[in-house]
Every structure is written in structure tokens, then in C-alpha cells.
């Protein structure tokens, strides 16, 4: 089951005869260090288990657990979870497999429809007025989710849908732009520096800057200072445009610029 973009929930009940028959396949030497684990597979856009998962990770379980909250931290991806026994040598024996689930997006889609094209600026203007960016607290907590995606502080989630310029997708082809638009929102009275250069903050607290992104890795610093100068927040995303050459060979993986931000707060 999907709890939210970052968390799943799994429950299970294993018949003792199922577990016994799996244990019968083990070597006597493997029994003492045997562990119960959940194996979480990222199966986005592929047929599992016919094809291999993109990646997986294990969660060691205590013997008595019958359910688990799984932090995937990967919105808009699909998952299958297996419960099984793992030997010290790394052999995995599956006891049961879950249904497939897909976590929702945690931010706006990067896909734009030609017939209903919109610009980033316009889109964020519309979101801004619906989420009341920069004008006091939010109506519900999830509105802060929008803020999480819009303000620099959000980038810790690893979601950079809001950062990369959207790829234009129409039909079966895809074009990737080597521009990055950095935008976000803060207190309208705050001062914002990107790469040390001041950026104009609009009346609604939003700001944006387009940066041409060369191939390779680029480090950027965004610094927001409150109007009284007492609070500063700085975010340093590292953006790398690796290769657009794999287009088409790996469906499901969009060659968008990827970025790993680091956050430093100064009180």
C-alpha cells in the first residue's frame, strides 16, 4: 500500500509450512545466521519479475514483525516488495511477493503537452496563488508540500522536478534542454543570491534565474537572507548533465539533469 510519495506500507502473514519448505532448501551451515528481510524492488516501467528491477534494497526485520513502513524516498516510482530469508552468504529465499504499487509524484510533472503548453513562470504563478506562496502560513499541511517543492529548503527530498527545465515530450521523441531554471520562493522581503549574484524577488516572494548548463557537473549556490539579516539559508545543488545518448534504449529513464543538493543552515 502507498502511504505517501516517500513511504509504503506492507503487511504479511506467512504460513508455517511455506517457511518450513523454504528452510528445507537451506544448508545446515546457513541456518544460524539466517535473517528475515524485506526486499524492496524499484520496478518502474518494467515487467517484474520477468525483467530485472532497476534497483533494490533490503530491510532486516525483527522476527515478530507482521507489517512494516518502508521509506523509499522515491516519488513517482513503482515498487514490488518480497519477504524472504537471507543467508549470511547473501542467498535470498522468497516467502511471498507483494502486489505492485506506484508512489505519487511529490511535485509538478516535468512533461508538458504542446497543445496546452505553459511556461514555468506562469505555472508557478498559478500555483503561487493557489498555495499562497510567501503570504503567511498554509491552509493545510500539504500546502507546505508545495512549498517544499518551491522553496530552496525543499531540495533535501531529492526531488528536483521543480528545478530542471521540463523536457518537451510529444509522441515518441524527447528533447532535452541544457538550461536550468532555478526558481523558488521565500519571504518577499528577503534577499536572494544565486552564484553570488543578487536576484530580484517578486512581490509574491517567487524568484527565478535561467542558467545555461554545460555538459558535466555544475555547482550552484543559492543564498536567501531574511530582511533583518538575521537568518540565512543556503542551498548548494550539484547539477550534472551526463548523457543524452541513451535516449530510446532505456525506456522509462528520462535523461533529465540529475542533481544532488546539500543543505546548510546558518542560524
Amino acid at each position: 500500500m502507498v502511504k505517501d510519495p516517500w513511504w509504503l506500507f506492507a503487511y504479511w502473514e506467512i504460513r508455517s509450512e511455506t517457511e518450513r519448505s523454504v528452510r528445507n532448501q537451506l544448508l545446515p551451515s546457513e541456518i544460524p545466521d539466517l535473517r528475515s528481510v524485506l526486499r524492496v524492488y524499484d520496478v518502474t516501467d518494467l515487467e517484474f519479475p520477468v525483467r530485472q528491477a532497476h534497483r533494490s534494497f533490503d530491510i532486516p526485520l525483527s522476527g515478530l514483525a507482521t507489517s512494516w513502513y518502508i521509506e523509499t524516498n522515491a516519488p513517482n516510482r513503482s515498487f514490488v516488495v518480497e519477504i524472504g530469508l537471507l543467508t549470511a552468504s547473501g542467498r535470498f529465499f522468497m516467502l511471498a511477493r507483494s502486489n505492485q504499487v506506484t508512489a505519487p509524484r511529490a511535485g509538478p510533472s516535468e512533461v508538458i503537452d504542446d497543445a496546452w503548453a505553459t511556461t514555468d513562470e506562469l505555472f508557478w504563478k498559478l500555483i503561487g496563488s493557489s498555495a499562497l506562496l510567501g503570504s503567511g502560513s498554509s491552509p493545510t499541511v500539504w500546502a507546505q508540500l508545495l512549498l517544499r517543492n518551491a522553496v530552496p529548503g525543499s531540495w533535501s527530498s531529492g526531488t528536483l522536478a521543480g528545478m530542471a527545465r521540463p523536457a518537451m515530450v510529444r509522441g515518441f521523441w524527447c528533447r532535452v534542454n541544457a538550461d536550468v531554471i532555478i526558481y523558488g520562493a521565500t519571504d518577499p522581503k528577503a534577499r536572494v543570491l544565486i552564484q553570488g549574484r543578487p536576484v530580484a524577488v517578486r512581490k509574491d516572494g517567487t524568484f527565478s534565474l535561467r542558467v545555461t548548463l554545460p555538459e558535466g557537473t555544475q555547482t550552484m549556490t543559492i543564498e536567501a537572507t531574511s530582511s533583518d539579516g538575521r537568518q540565512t539559508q543556503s542551498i548548494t545543488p550539484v547539477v550534472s548533465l551526463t548523457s543524452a545518448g541513451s535516449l530510446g534504449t532505456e525506456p522509462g529513464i528520462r535523461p533529465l539533469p540529475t542533481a544532488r543538493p546539500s543543505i546548510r543552515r546558518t542560524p
Partner: protein
Amino acid sequence: MSGAQGTLCLILHTHLPFVRHPEHPDFLEERWLFEAITETYLPLLSRFTRLCEDQIPFRITMSFTPTLLAMLADDLLKVRYLRHLERLIELTEKEIHRTRWLPPFHRLALFYHHRLTTARHLYLDVHRCDLIRPFRELSERGVIEPLASCATHGYLPLMEPQRPAVRAQIGVGVQAFEHAFGRRPVGFWLPECGYHPGHDEELKAFGIRYMLLDAHGVLFGSPRPKYGVYAPVFCPSGVAAFSRDLESSKSVWSAEEGYPGDADYREFYRDIGYDLDYEYIRPYLNGDGTRLNTGIKYYRITGKTAEKQPYDPDRALEKAAQHASNFMFNREKQVEHLRSIMDRPPVIISPYDAELFGHWWFEGPDWLELLMRKAHFDQNVFTLATPSEYLERFPANQVLQPSMSSWGHGGYSDVWLNGSNDWCYRHLHKMAERMTRAADAHPTSDSLRTRVLNQMARELLLAQSSDWAFILKTQTHAAYAYRRLHDHLARFDALQETLRQPQVDEAWLSTVESKDSLFPFLDYRVYATR
């Protein structure tokens, strides 16, 4: 709609879980319905009627959940409501006497006495104990657009991937709507605005044309919505999705910044059920004598203080008028702003829980009526309309796949899936699986077994009410929610067991049917695999 720059859709979601206990003479949780009738449904009806009489062309969209419709139509609950009302009227008579030398309270005692006797007159003489009929008549006049909803307010995203369970919640909900309103529903209220991709296809199969989502359901949809939440979108299935505007929501919902928290409005948490001498109030409490809300409340919010001032209805009404003007002015500015950045007139979707109006926010129904009047006479920037009227006018809309979402805390399923309630899903999923298996195994059956299978479906539907998971999370009435889940699970198991027996104990079956007695039209085959 001509000439206006935008459209405002006010939507009230009207829901209560099915609570009916013939086995007890007096049951605390049945008061949820009684309070909602006195404080919300009757006041809304009388205001809508007045607007019609004054020929104000207003529009409002209202969902009515099948569980609520079943309770409003139930004879036992009708009798119990009147008994409840009689006792409250008796209490206000005593209060008139008690407050004789306390002028501000005396006036309020008279005020409540008048309100409650009016409620009795409306319920008994005007509506003849049938509250569905006046709502249906308003819908036939075209001022109310009724929305269908799930059979028992089941939260659909957590039923995925069991599509027969999802389909039954929707299908039985649509059937209940048709029984109450005598026509097919056009719009559908997803409980808690809980949407999972693909469920629109199930809605489409029942002829639904639109549904309502929270803002991020559309904002995070793919491709990006050109107009954000200010225009509907079409799912790939062709079902339209309207999404919530947060700015207008906040001004009404928010406890701190919203209108309902104003110092002049009535304080909900000061009730004579708690304030007055225990011996005096005891006859008006429930069987076990626990203090409770009677609905008679003498104070205004006053401020962040325990020293509350007496409530002044005139002053509160004055404030409701100011707030209606303020809401209207803000919508005008919002529409003008949106119109400047959009190439078509925006639609603003403002959904609220109906019980907010009257029950929680006592002056809410006044505010709503004043807003409708002002919107008609005092401005021409926006018009009130229903989502289907908007769709008729703007049939061409962007196609996109909305994102999984809900309007609960956090925006996803956190409220209904956490440490306090996650245990119930293994049972609910198992029940749904068994139900489908039983339906597949009995494409036809004798009349007694048909009754057993139908009752199994009722027990499953009742167990799926999102209310139980919600109550377990908030921990008010948690024992009751736990008991309800337990009872429906146990009855389901016992019913399924009788299917295996050569003989069905009809007397026992009748007892179960008389307890969980809703949806007489239900056909268990809705659970069959297709």
C-alpha cells in the same frame, strides 16, 4: 454566466457514518445525526428555501453519502430524533425559568427555545420527517446539484488493487443516489477526495462525468495542467476532474485565520452540558450519565481567554455579513488576477464539509445565505455555478493523468494508514477477497442464501467506512470505532460460515439484517469479477 470573468463553485460535502443501534434505547453516537439535522441540515434547507422564495439565482453543489441518506430515511431514527428534540425543548423551557434574573442568558434561553421549536415545526409539519424530499426538490429546481458518493464513505486509494471492492463502493453509491434523487448522478464526491489513478475508469462505467480532487491531484498530474486548479481537466477515461482552490478554502476552514474563529461567533466548546450543575443536567445526558454537548451554548469565542463573554446573536449576524462581503471581495480580486494571467475564465472550486456550517461554525448558514445574496446583487465579476454547468460552457479541456491524492492531513493516505489503524487493512482486504470469491461462486442462489450474501456485502461495506480509521487516529470515540470494525468483521465471518452449512438459521439472519439494515436494493453480484 455571460459577462462574468469567472465562476465560483461552492460545494458542501454531507456525510455521516451509519450509526443506528436498535438494541439500545439510547445511543450516544446516534446524536451525531440529530445534531447535524438540527444545526446543519434544517438551517441550510430553510435558507435555500428562502433564497428560492426571494428569487435569488444561487447555485450550490452538495454530496449526500448513502449512509446519511439511509439514516435520514430510517423510521427508527426519525422517531428517536423527535424524542431527542422534545427533550432539548424541555431543557430550554427549564433554562428560560432558570435564567429569569440573568438577562443576557435569559435572552439566549429564549433564542434556543425558539430555534428548537422551529426545528420541530420544520421537521414534523413542513418536511413531514423526510429531509431527502426537500433536497430533491431543490435539485429539481436546479439550484442544488447533488453529487453521488461511495456507499459507506470508503477511502478508495487503500482499497487498491482490489477493483471489485472499489467498484462496489461506487456502484452501490450510485444506486443509493438514484433511489434518493430519482435520476442518475452526473458528479461524484470521492470520500476524502481520495483518488487513485484508474478509479476514474470505474466512475465512468457508472456514467459519472466529473469528480472532485484536492489541488495537488491536478497540479501534480502529468502532463502539467496549463491552468493549474482553475480549470477542469479530463482523465484519459474522459471523466473530468475539478480541483480545490486553497485560497478560498483557507478563509473558511482555518481555525486560526478563518472566519469561524472570530471573537463574536459562538464558542463551540462551552456547552451547558458541561457548565451546569450535574443533578440539573443529568436527565438530559445519555444513559451512562457522562457529560456531553447539548448544543445549547451561551458564550462567544471572545478571544484566547477562559473568561468568555455571553453570546450576542445580532452582533454575530453582523459579523457574518461582514465576512460574506470579505469573501466575495477576495473572490472578485482573485478572479480578476487569474483572468489577467489566464486566457479563459477561471473556475474556483471551494469544497467544505457541510457540518462545518451550523454545527461547528454556528453562523455558517447565515454566512452562506448572505454570500449568495451579495454575490447576486453586489458584484458582477464572478457567477455561482455548478461544475456541470461549467463543463457545458467549456467542454474542451486539457487531458492529463491526475496524481494520487486526498484532502487529508499530509495530502495522501497518512490519516487512514498509520500506527493507530493500519491493522484493519489486512482484515478489510481479506474480507473483500472472500466477498468476491463468494460472489463468483454463487452466480445465482436461493432466496435465503441471496440474503446471506447480500448481508455479507453490507457488513463489508460498513466495515470499510473511512470514519473508523479516522476515529482511531484522532482517538475520540475510539472504543466505538474499534467495536464497529470488530462487529462487522465478526458478522461477516459468521455469515460466510452459514453459507457452508446445509441450513441457514433464518431467525439469526433476520436479527443481523435488522441491525445493519441499509441498502435494501443491494445485490451482492456487484462484487463478482468481470
